[in-house]
């Protein structure tokens, strides 16, 4: 029973990472109807930038800030340079372009930083927390991870709800033509959406990297599970992405704890298949049927 509690708490912390990746995918999907396969690669690159800054300055938080800033810029630049030309093309073109981006970024990271595994520092202590003598199975860093993603998600939700930029983002996603007629600079809004997604992805990269090592492919597995989280929740629903991430994180942590960690990707695949078979547009999606 104690083990069950530990696995649940640990799963919540991992699940928040999946939720963050899922959230960044949902942001881009809502704005441009494109699924960004390069999201994991972008997060890997910004984490390398964070590591370089940390090694030079000796300050974790300087690296943390650098990663977020780099994510913001990277997202905006990618949208402007390579995504804009395929936005009006069939979905297949965008899929191929973002996959191309993914392996371009991974190849570049391998050339610049080398392929070896590097350890990435954690913000807080990674020794397990206790209540009295009972181990909780999580560390203060896990608490930080959970709180950080939660704050980011809430800020994002509030930004969408209460700011003018948020209103423009929602309008542009809802109907680009009408918003353009009403004076919304839709192109600029889409760039902002990608930049925000880059920021959330960068946050996820910095937060997960202490528990996995950092190497050019380190985010591949995290990305596919983040994608699974977003699909479970419904690609249209930010709240769904967070819920999907939590469900997936906890469920996979049980699998890893009771059955062995090798089976995690297979169970991820099984979960994705079952959800997609039963509800192709996700558990929390309110989207109408696919248009033809």
């Amino acid at each position, binding site marked *: 029973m104690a083990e069950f509690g530990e696995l649940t708490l640990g799963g919540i912390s991992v699940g928040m990472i999946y939720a963050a990746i899922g959230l960044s995918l949902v942001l881009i*999907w809502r704005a441009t*109807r*494109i*699924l960004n*396969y390069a999201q994991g690669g972008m997060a890997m690159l910004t984490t390398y930038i964070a590591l370089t800054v940390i090694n030079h300055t000796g300050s974790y938080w300087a690296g943390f800030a650098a990663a977020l800033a780099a994510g913001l810029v990277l997202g905006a630049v990618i949208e402007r340079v*390579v995504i804009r*030309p*395929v*936005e*009006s*093309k*069939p*979905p*297949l*073109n965008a*899929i*191929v*372009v973002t*996959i*191309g*981006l*993914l*392996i*371009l*970024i*991974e*190849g*570049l*990271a*391998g*050339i*610049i930083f*080398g*392929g070896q595994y590097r350890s990435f520092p954690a913000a807080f202590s990674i020794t397990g927390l206790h209540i009295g003598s009972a181990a909780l199975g999580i560390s203060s860093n896990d608490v930080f991870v959970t709180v950080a993603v939660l704050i980011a998600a809430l800020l994002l939700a509030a930004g969408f709800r209460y700011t003018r930029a948020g209103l423009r983002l929602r309008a542009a996603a809802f*109907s*680009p*033509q009408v918003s*353009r007629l009403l004076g919304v600079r839709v192109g600029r809004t889409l760039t902002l959406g990608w930049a925000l997604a880059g920021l959330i992805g960068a946050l996820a990269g910095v937060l997960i990297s202490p528990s996995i090592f950092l190497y050019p492919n380190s985010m*591949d*597995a995290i990305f*596919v599970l983040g*994608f*699974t989280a977003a*699909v479970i929740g419904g*690609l249209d629903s930010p709240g769904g992405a967070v819920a999907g991430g939590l469900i997936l994180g906890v469920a996979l942590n049980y699998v890893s704890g009771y059955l*062995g960690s*090798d*089976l995690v*990707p*297979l169970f*991820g*695949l099984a979960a*994705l*298949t079952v959800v*997609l*078979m039963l509800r*192709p547009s996700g558990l929390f999606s309110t989207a109408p049927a*696919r*248009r*033809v």
Partner: protein
Amino acid sequence: MTLLRHLAAAVLAAVVVAILTIQLNAFRDYQIAEIACYVVAVAGLTVLVGLSGQISLGNGALMAVGAYAAGLLLIHLQWPLAGVLAAATAISAVSGALVGVAAARLRGPYLAGATLLLAVALPSLAIKYAGVFGGDQGLTVGLTPPAFLGASFPLTRWQAWLTCACALITLVLLANLARSRVGRSWRAASDDEVAAALAGLNVARLRVLAFVVSAACAGLGGALLAVTTSIISPGAFTVTLSIALLTGAVLGGLGSLPGAIWGSLVLVLLPTYVTDVATSHGLSSAAGSNVPVAAYGIVLILVMLVFPEGIQGGVRRLLRQFTPGTPASRDLPPGRAAASEHQEEGSL
């Protein structure tokens, strides 16, 4: 008529390959064999993506299915090679049917993501059940030239002949399939699903069938790759392989079988070439091995942005300039896969 034309082209290609393999050295023969393995797999993928309009990032995993099936049959049952290749193809076709049934309801990014997860998840099975699949080390299989070719027949030439023969047979079969009723139905269903369904086509069955065909090709390609490289390990069938296959199909020209040959040539020859150039310019070999990966990425992006018809599209345009008066290509209209406009919100 078309059947005859395809057969004639295949016989011509076989003669060219035979001359090349006798003239070239053992290393080039080995490369030809490798190219042929990729041709089989890429041709299957280009049919899936270009004709039926579905995407798969999991064909590398289906190649692994074929490779491991072939390895296990060779090691434990000592089947003859032809039987092994046929069985490996059949087993991957069945796996492809399973994937296809699950995938038939999925579209675009959902399908790509689900198949991507397949590519990530399947190799981990080989490590989990190390007793059967050999774990990280993988399985080792041997291949010897058949006795009737003589004792001194070089192994690499036999590998090149075997793989090229399989590749040509696959290409002829696929070319006929693409021209047949099934091929036309695939195009109809991918151009306009609703219209195709109204015209009486069973769209779901067509989509599954496309997956089966592409999986069979991937399995045969994987089995051939296994007997060519003589080692089958999970490290050879990563996501990178799946993405390389897609790169080959896109670069050659989606939906075009000659394009699959162009794409495979680039997939095999470019990495060696680029790595050589990079290391000779002072990059360490570890960094140099990443240059081809980055190059694939640039190629994918540029092809999609600048010339979505791929290499075969360019070849076709050149040919048309030299032969004025030929009717518009009987092949797919150029860039069909990239040009159909079902976009929800057009760009203003």
